[in-house]
């Protein structure tokens, strides 16, 4: 028995997808659009939109002329590609050989699959039923060749199952565009009056090759089944999961340790091969009595360093109770990130946050004492002091701009400025003395004011005039006055930080 193929055509792939996500779009005309040279070009239109005369390829502005309240959804680049890939992976349940057919189709080799559903009819119904229930509009075609399946899916009436060996006669009636050939060639065939495949197939092959190139003949042969065509199936992505079944249940801590080390070695080799490092890992032990014990670790930067990871787990597996024994161990890395492999000799030379040992130390401290103890700050480009720094999430994060050096900032900035009482000449001269926590400080030196306005797009309030002052003991403080003395605004003095 020969091969059989199924071609699925998602007629409104992206708009169907949007409608699934935003059901309110179902009955209103909407389009997907991408920017192009300062205009927005429509890439897809839903059924309601087409009814208003709007077509893909139009400029959004022009289509708004036709339908002023047209809804426009920005299409993320590559959306169709991502969708079709995901659908192909999903369709593996119907056939192991599933391929994407850009821009909006799937190809399945169904040889030997359909009988599991009770024949092609039922098989197709099952697939279409599932996809339509999701909300997709589909046309399908089944035939002996990829080309014929593709053609009847798009140019046939309804859903077509071509009986084996009938592809030739079915294709003759269809227009040349059904041959998957370049639009130029289709155009030229039309200009020559060749509006169905029938006469084209009847022409001398040499005459066709001379005028229209080899592609046309190849596509004809593929569709008719004269030339073989193969699919490149999508593969499911392999997750980072390692399993270690045990012949005899393991009952000792040493045994658990050995299992962990084995699994780590395998997982890390796998990770290294892919240029990845793990940020999170889960270690599970399946006990004979059905109980599952698990523990997880996290790292501050991607790691595939077996010894380090082992140390992180080591603490935690101490309280694993083997009881009657453990029959299966798994090690999973749900969160990984790209790492650049470091040469071993360089490890010793790196310093600061580039030194992996620092990160490993931090990992150990956090794993022992709990997260949230170690903070790392980076400069943020804001004049407003409370917003002038941000907490870094990773060890890799580099400052986007250098720490400003032209304006001294206190080494200890209070999280909330504290009210103080001052005696100061107006309007904007530094204070002469201030009272903080019931102690009076006499100011002997002062610099300022540094006037910092509110970032008006974030919040609107009074500006601050900052002064760096030194009291009689030589201690330095950062004080500010909120608002002007003049005008109707109230003003108040605060202490905001201590210099070292």
């Amino acid at each position, binding site marked *: 028995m020969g091969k059989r193929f199924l071609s699925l055509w998602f007629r409104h792939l992206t708009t169907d997808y949007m409608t699934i996500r935003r059901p309110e779009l179902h009955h209103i005309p909407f389009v997907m659009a991408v920017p192009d040279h300062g205009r927005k070009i429509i890439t897809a239109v839903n059924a309601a939109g087409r009814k208003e005369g709007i077509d893909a390829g139009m400029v959004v502005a022009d289509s708004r*002329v036709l339908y002023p309240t047209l809804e426009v959804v920005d299409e993320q680049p590559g959306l169709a590609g991502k969708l079709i890939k995901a659908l192909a992976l999903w369709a593996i349940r119907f056939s192991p050989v599933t391929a994407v057919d850009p821009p909006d189709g799937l190809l399945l080799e169904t040889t030997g699959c359909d009988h599991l559903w009770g024949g092609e009819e039922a098989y197709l119904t099952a697939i279409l039923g599932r996809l339509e229930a999701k909300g997709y509009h589909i046309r399908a075609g089944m035939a002996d060749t990829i080309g014929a399946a593709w053609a009847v899916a798009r140019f046939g009436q309804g859903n077509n199952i071509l009986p084996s060996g009938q592809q030739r006669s079915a294709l003759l009636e269809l227009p040349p565009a059904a041959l998957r050939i370049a639009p130029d060639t289709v155009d030229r065939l039309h200009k020559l009056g060749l509006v169905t495949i029938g006469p084209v197939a009847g022409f001398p092959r040499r005459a066709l090759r001379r005028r229209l190139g080899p592609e046309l003949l190849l596509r004809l042969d593929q569709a008719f089944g004269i030339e073989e065509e193969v699919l490149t199936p999508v593969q499911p992505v392999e997750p980072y999961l390692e399993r270690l079944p045990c012949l005899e249940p393991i009952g000792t801590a040493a045994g658990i340790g050995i299992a962990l080390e084995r699994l780590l070695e395998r997982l890390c080799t796998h990770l290294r091969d892919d240029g990845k490092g793990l940020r999170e890992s889960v270690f599970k032990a399946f006990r004979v009595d059905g109980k599952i014990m698990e523990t997880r670790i996290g790292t501050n930067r991607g790691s595939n360093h077996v010894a380090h990871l082992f140390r992180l787990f080591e603490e935690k597996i101490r309280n694993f109770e083997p009881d009657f024994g453990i029959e299966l161990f798994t090690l999973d890395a749900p969160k990984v990130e790209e790492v650049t492999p470091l040469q071993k000799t360089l490890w010793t030379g790196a310093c600061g946050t580039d030194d992996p040992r620092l990160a490993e130390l931090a990992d150990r401290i956090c794993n022992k004492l709990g997260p949230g103890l170690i903070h790392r700050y980076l400069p943020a480009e804001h004049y407003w002091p409370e917003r002038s720094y941000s907490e870094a999430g990773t060890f890799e994060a580099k400052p986007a701009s250098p720490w400003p050096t032209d304006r001294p900032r206190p080494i200890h900035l209070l999280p909330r400025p504290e009210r103080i009482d001052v005696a100061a000449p107006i309007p904007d001269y530094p204070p002469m003395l201030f009272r903080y926590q019931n102690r009076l400080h006499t100011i002997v030196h002062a610099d300022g004011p540094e006037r910092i306005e509110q970032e008006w797009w974030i919040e609107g309030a009074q500006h601050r005039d900052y002064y760096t002052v030194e009291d009689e003991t030589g201690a330095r403080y950062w004080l500010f006055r909120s608002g002007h003395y003049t005008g109707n605004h109230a003003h108040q003095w605060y202490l905001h930080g201590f210099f070292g």
Partner: protein
Amino acid sequence: MHINGIYMDSLASYTELQVTSNFSFLRGASHPDELVEQAAAHGHSAIALTDRNTLAGIVRAHAAAKKTGIRFIPGCRLDLLDGPSLLALPTDKDAYSRLSALLTTGNLRAEKGECHLYRADVYAHAKGIIFVVVPADRLNQLFDYDDGFYAAAREYRDAFGDSCYLAACRYYRGDDAKHLYRLSALAGETQLPLVATNDIHYHHPDRRELQDVLTCIREKCTIAEAGFRLHPNAERYMKPITEMRRLFRQYPNAIVRAQEISEACRFTLDSLKYIYPEEITSEGRTPMEELIHLVRAGARQLFGENIPARIETNIRHELDFIGQMNYPAYFLTVYDVVRYARQQGILCQGRGSAANSTVCYCLGITSVDPTKFDLLFERFLSAARNEPPDIDVDFEHERREEVMQYVYNKYGRDRAAIVATVTQVHQKGAIRDVGKAMGLSLDTVDRLAKSIWRHDEVLNDARILEQGLDGYDPHLLKVLDLTRQYIGFPRQLGQHTGGFVITKGKLTDLCPIINARMEDRTNIEWNKDDIDVLGFLKIDVLALGMLTCIRKAFDLASRHYGVHWTLANIPQDDPAVYAMVSTADTIGVFQIESRAQQSMLPRLRPSCFYDLVIEVAIVRPGPIQGDMVHPYLRRRNGEEPVSFPSKELEDILGRTLGVPLFQEQAMKIAIVAAGFTPSEADELRRSMATFKAQGQVTKFKRKLIDGMTRNGYSAEYAERVFKQIEGFGSYGFPESHAVSFALLVYISAWIKCYYPDVFVCALLNSLPMGFYQPAQLVIDARRHGVGFHPVDVNHSQWDSTLEAREGKYFTVRLGFRQVDGIKEEDMLLLIAGRTQAYDTVQALQDSGLSAACLEKLADADAFRSLGLDRRQALWEVSSLADRPIGLFRGTDSESKFEKGIDLPAMALSEHVVQDYASTSLSLKAHPVQFMRERLRNLGVISASEMMSRRNGDFVKVAGLVLVRQRPGTSKGVVFITLEDESGQFNLIVWASVFEEYRKEILGAKMLMVQGHLQIEKEVVHVIVQRCHNMNRLLVAEAPERGAEPVVRVAAKTMLEAKQASLFPEARNFK
């Protein structure tokens, strides 16, 4: 004592020397006039303007300073590529000229919009200029300036000597004291005096937010990302004197220095004198003598030795006036350009306030015979307004560049340059920029921009709500508020369409010159209004497509008919021409070919030259908005007595039967009836044109209406006059321009009337131009008895040509330029290779044409003389890639032996559709003809049948859509022109019907409508009630299912190819 005296005096006053306006694009956040007004309000004694490497804003500041009575110091900030910036303040006229020359040097060596200057350039131009060194606004980690700055400051001191100062500024960054300390130490060491400035970026602290947004637009980031690129505080505003004194209380001398510099800079723009070039006179004559000499010579040529008495009086009168106003040099300058054009055989025609004079007629600047209308010269040139004369000269659009280059070459690029246009930020641009900077999503920005319909509309909160945006969202309100402030800001310096300034001395003595975006063009930094303020004269060298067409027609007429016509010798007042025009037979005629004009012509029935002048001016927004058209028509047809609102208006309105139609008339009414001064009237018109001055318009409106009602006019009449002026604002159309245009109307109509073959041929060769597509021009010419031959590889030239004479006229051979997608140089190859007729496709390829090019020719069905239709030709052409080459060259191609290939024959209707797709016209048949049978079954009548029906009849008609229009003056009414095989006809669609059938009307290529006929004096319209999209008829010709896509593709191509031109007003529908 003396020093003390200055000291006390200077402390009482202050001059800000470092001022950045919005002419430092995307840096300054206030207009120059706002800054000047603020300085005056604070009692500053003077103000300087120091924009970055430009003097573009100084004229505006100068004008504002004159108004407020404060002294203005022109200057600029020099941003150097190799050193700290300098404020440059010229002390006298020569120093100013040197500064201008310095900027010119920097401009011309850089791309447009940039200025590359080095220290050495500044040293070479330094004499008489006071320089202020601008230190960096940040100190390094050692709380000091970098060594480079100290070195540069010493070098500047050595180069500029006593004319060099050091700017000190209170930035409020916390280290002001350190700054001032370092600077004063430097001042002590180098003897560079410290001068106080406040580095102004806006006139009021409230503008800080806008200034932040401008920074974001400049840096292409959002406000959240802008970080340290913004200023930390709002201190860069114009401060009162007392505050400046307080800030510099420890360095009071710095304030004194500012005043000292201010006193030294006594140069004012008023002292710039415009002097005409000298080259315009000959044989040692004075300009006046030269003008008299030329006018006399011209008059003799035109009228012979016996000059008619009336002409003689006019010439004397005008020359006296010109002499008295001292304008002879201006006329001579214009004459010089016109003379060159005439020598080169380039057609030209002057227009504008002074162009329609007898003097200009004698000089050949205009070809309008001054006896054709009876106007006093002063009507155009008002001595009271003391405004320079204004002559615009139109040249053939294809050859205007020659004239411009002549001007550059004759006077040199240092003496002649084009005036700038200061492009302002419009609503849409403003909201886009501000929205993006404020971090709104692109989608929201789009919606906001959409909510603005027309550029003259104020932002409307209701519209914003309509777009589904939250009108109470504070962030959105902030965006709108900032947008309102930003609108009207200068954005860039563009090139005026053709206004030249030519001077006797170096132009750079007056104003810096910059490179224009176009190659070989240079322009100055000032625009038309700036030039006006300073009293410089400019002449406009403009381009007009119709002149190209007329010249081509003259050339064809002389080659084929042996007659030599010029703009001046076409027979005038020919009744046959007026008869033709009166029946609206005006397709292709200049200005009066549009649908609106065509429906006006039979009502107006022009019968003399002045009627054409009125015709040109009446279908304009001014008269229409002022509701002046119908009163005029009624009076003209004797349905209403001619009366005047008052005696004084009789003089103004006599020629137009008491109805104001021209811009001049409306302005005069404002002066005479509402008591405006002439300059106020002009300001009124200008304020209408600029959308920024909303408040002013209301002020003027009240003044006009109050003034007129006080003088006894009805409020309703006053309202109409105001509306009319409002309409003129955007499309000013004065009588003086209408007169010049009317001449071209008459001449093009005359050619169409007597030589329709020549006319259509010239029109086809001048496209794109005017209102109609080639198909309509050809159909119209055929109706007048002109024969056509299709494009053919063996007969066509690039242009359309005239072939043998058949009957009354020559037959037109369509040119290759008609074929879509073909390049002229390819066709020149083809023509060069055509030593004998091509008999095979291969021979054509041998002439050097690519297969792609031949395929385009096949698409155009241009192989008929080879016995091939387009399909057969394509079959041949497509095999060319496989020709025997090398050793086998010359042997028969394999095509000869191919057998059994029968391409399907093409139906005529298919050919027609393909003709449209390739050449946008078909000589074979009209597309609607093929569907007539089916249309008849639907009860549709043809255009010719419709003409025999009566007013009010209910009809069903159908045709190809030629034009859809929704003019701004029509209150939502849509006008559509359809065409079937028997003719064109017009539809009127009321706004409500349009809303109902929007999809059909906008989507249909082929439209069927039902409605009532409205016939008014030969003007036939269908008032549409129902619409149907009949596009399917364009494709229904092919019966089988498979064939459908062919025609659909073709129809689509046709639609696309023509969409741009068929849909010219598409924007109106938004």
